[in-house]
Every structure is written in structure tokens, then in C-alpha cells.
């Protein structure tokens, strides 16, 4: 018999013991470790899946946000465009208004310039006219005219109205009978005597001798002028011409505004 039952029983027990030993030291820990690893891998996969979902969610959110931002950008651009248009319109209007104002100012200045030019022109024309008249009279003035002038002057003194006569008297009295005679040409001695005589008649009182000094003045334009203590008796063409000049200028001044209106209207038409 090659089967030793004693050994068989021993071996059965040995085998059972070995099963338990290996179960304790081999299968248990190894299976446990493998399960743990599997669990961890599963866990990691789940985590990864969750993270992927999260990432996808986030990415979707970002895409949405991006779209939103793009929309907003469009809106803002539109607004900016509108605002810019408005600003442009406003600036254009402002510019137009300023240009208008400037133009108006310029037109006004132009008008003023024109007016003053015309006024000046008129004044000069007047002065020129007077100067022409004066030249004519100067050319005509000679000793005969001087004689005639003396006659007229003496006549004027002798026929002085009562008021003026007394005024002259007062003036002479206040200046010690000092009298200044301005003439254009040298005066003849008899004419001077005649004048002194006439003055003596005017001056009343003890000392009626006039203190007469004579001065030649070319600016007088054929005439005589008696100056006694601020009082003046004169006859000369210059004074007439002055009066004429004054008169002409006054007339021109008065005429100017009415003439302007027509001219301004004409200017406006040519400009437009």
C-alpha cells in the first residue's frame, strides 16, 4: 500500500492550515490592495469626470459671457457712434453759427470801414473844394483888392452896432488901448491913420490914443483883422471860406447816413 493514511491525514491538516495562512498573508492583503487601488482609480476617474463637467460648464459660461460682452460692445459702439454723430452735428452747428457771427461782424466792420471811408472822402472833397476856392481868391488878391478891403473894413468899424461898439470900448479899456492889426499885405500909412482916427472916436475918455501894432499874416487870404483885448473885428475871405467849409461839412455829415443805407443794401446783394 503506497498510501500512508497517517501521512494523508497530516497532509489534509497541513493543506487546510496552508489555506488559512495564505488567506491571511496573501489573498486578503493583495485583494484588499487591488480593491483599494481600483477604488482610488474609480474615484480619480469620477473626480476627473466631475472636473471635466465643471470645466465644460465653466467654458460654457465663458462663451456666454463672451457673447454677452460682444453684444454689449456692439451696443456701446452704437452709442458711441450716435454720440459722435450728435457731437459732430453740434460742432457743425456751432461752427456754422460762429462762421455766421464772424461773417456778420466782418460785414459790420466792413460797413463801418466803408462808412468811415465815405465820410472821410466827403470831408476831403469839402476841404478840397474850399482849398480850391481859397487858391482862386489868393490868386485874385492884389493891392486894389486890398484897398477895397480896407474900405469895407473901415465901413464895418464905423457902422458897428451900439452893443458891439460898447463891447469894443470895454475891451480896449481893459487892455490899455492896445490893438493888434493883422493884414495880408503891408498896409499904407494913410489907412493906418484912418483906422487910428476911427478908433479914437470909439475910445472915449482922456487918453483916447490907441496903441496900434501891425502884423502881416499870409494865412488871412485877403482881409483884415483887429484884435483888441480878446475882442475881434475882422473882414477877410478866409473867415468866409471857413464858414463855407463848415457849412459844406455839416451838410455832408447830414447826408451821409441816408446815402449809406442804399449802399449797404447794394453791398449785401453783391455778396450773396
Amino acid at each position, binding site marked *: 500500500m503506497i498510501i500512508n493514511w497517517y*501521512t494523508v491525514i497530516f*497532509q489534509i491538516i497541513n493543506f487546510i492550515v496552508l489555506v488559512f495562512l495564505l488567506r491571511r498573508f496573501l489573498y486578503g492583503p493583495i485583494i484588499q*490592495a487591488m480593491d483599494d487601488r481600483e477604488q482610488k482609480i474609480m474615484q480619480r476617474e469620477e473626480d476627473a469626470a466631475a472636473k471635466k463637467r465643471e470645466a465644460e460648464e465653466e467654458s460654457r459660461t465663458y462663451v456666454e459671457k463672451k457673447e454677452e460682452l460682444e453684444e454689449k460692445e456692439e451696443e456701446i459702439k452704437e452709442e458711441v457712434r450716435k454720440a459722435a454723430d450728435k457731437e459732430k452735428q453740434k460742432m457743425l452747428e456751432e461752427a456754422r453759427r460762429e462762421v455766421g457771427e464772424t461773417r456778420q461782424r466782418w460785414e459790420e466792420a466792413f460797413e463801418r470801414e466803408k462808412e468811415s471811408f465815405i465820410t472821410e472822402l466827403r470831408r476831403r472833397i469839402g476841404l478840397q473844394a474850399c482849398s480850391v476856392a481859397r487858391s482862386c481868391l489868393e490868386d485874385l488878391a492884389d493891392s486894389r483888392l486890398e484897398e477895397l478891403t480896407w474900405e469895407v473894413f473901415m465901413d464895418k468899424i464905423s457902422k458897428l452896432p451900439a452893443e458891439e461898439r460898447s463891447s469894443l470900448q470895454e475891451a480896449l479899456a481893459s487892455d490899455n488901448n492896445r490893438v493888434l492889426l493883422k493884414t495880408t499885405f503891408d498896409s499904407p500909412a494913410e489907412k493906418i491913420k484912418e483906422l487910428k482916427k476911427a478908433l479914437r472916436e470909439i475910445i472915449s475918455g482922456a487918453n483916447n490914443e490907441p496903441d496900434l501894432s501891425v502884423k502881416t499874416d499870409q494865412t488871412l487870404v485877403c482881409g483884415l483883422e483887429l484884435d483888441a483885448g480878446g475882442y475881434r473885428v475882422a473882414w477877410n475871405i478866409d473867415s468866409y471860406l471857413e464858414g463855407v467849409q463848415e457849412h459844406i461839412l455839416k451838410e455832408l455829415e447830414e447826408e451821409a447816413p441816408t446815402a449809406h443805407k442804399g449802399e449797404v443794401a447794394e453791398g449785401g446783394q453783391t455778396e450773396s
Partner: protein
Amino acid sequence: MTINPDEIVLFQWSWLVINSTIFFTWLVMFLLTLGSWLVTRKLTSQGQLSRWQNLLEVLINAINGQIREVSRQEPGPYLPFIGTLFIYIAVSNILGIVPGFTPPTGSLSTTAALAISVFIAVPVFGIARQGIINYLLQYIQPTFFMLPFNIIGELSRTLALAVRLYGNIMSGTIIVAILLTITPLIFPVVMQALGLLTGLIQAYIFAILAMVYIASASQAHEEIQKKGEK
């Protein structure tokens, strides 16, 4: 020349006899337990695995895969039994190449003991899975008259299992012994290498057959149920 390692008595005290088979079985048990303990005391479930842990995981995964394929059930409850059968037989056979080591599987007593273990395990697993009544009912399938044949089948396959393993391991040892007398050089080495292969194949066959028997016992119930449903 001693063929039966049971007869080599190493220690005897009163009725307690420690023969070569028992001694080398203990040695294998010790080596396996020590190796397992050394590897599994520092297991990691993440990061880089140690080389030995990787080896054991591959081994156990392979055993699990085989059990799953044969039984079409979860390998959990069967792993310690089937796995131990395979590892014990394989390690014993491989260590046979070491001079002075007598593989315990070369003793008919050992193979008989393993076959008896399978013989007991089959009904235990069957009953555990489908209950005692359902388990016993399959002995009278398909008819009551099949009962003696079923019992004979059960016994004969246990005997076949024992003798197959014994024959294969023992033959390997005997062939080497015979060849040593004829051609003492080189040729025995080839035979020993072949012996390694046949040793592993035997371990695989023994474990798979044990699983097939256990699976047939625990699947019968499901088959009966399926028939009933039809």
C-alpha cells in the same frame, strides 16, 4: 532507491512520525507564508508597486481570471482554496529541481490528501451556494436511478485526480532516476527542465479540475431552475 517519500522517516517520537513528505510540506508552507508576509507587509495601493507585489498581483489576477472563466461566477469565495492548491502544487514541483528536495506532491499520500480535500470541498461549496436540499437533489438527476452512478462518478473523479497528480510527479522523478543510471550526463538536465514544465501544467490541471468539479456542483441548482422555468 526509495520511490515513496513517506517511507523516509526523519524524526520519530512515540506515535509521532515526521517523514520526508510532511517535512517538505512544512518547508513549502513556511516558505510560502514567509514570502507572502514579506511582500504583503508593505503593500501600496497607489504610486509605484514593488516588483514582488506586482508578481503576486499578476498571479492572483490570473487565478481569479481562470476561476471566473470556468465557473462564470465571482472568484472571491473560491480563490483561497483553488489558489492554494495551485500555488502549493506549483511551488512543490518547481522546488523539485533543488537537489535534496523531495517534492511532497510525489507522494501518493499527499495527492490523495489533496484529492480528498477537493472531494470534501465540492459538497461544501455546493451546499454553501444552493442549500443542502438542492445540492442533494442533483444526485438524483435526471432520475432517481442515476443516484449510484452519480456517487460512483463523484468518487472516481476524486481518485483520478489523486492518481493523475501522483503519477505525473512521480513519473518525472522516476524517469530522472532511471536516466541517471543510463546517461548520467546532460540528458537528465533536459528531463528536469521538462519536469518543471509538467509540474506547472499539473498544478494548473489539478486546480482547474477542482474548480470544474466545484463549479458543476454549484451550477447544478441554476440548471435545475432554468429547466423548471422552461
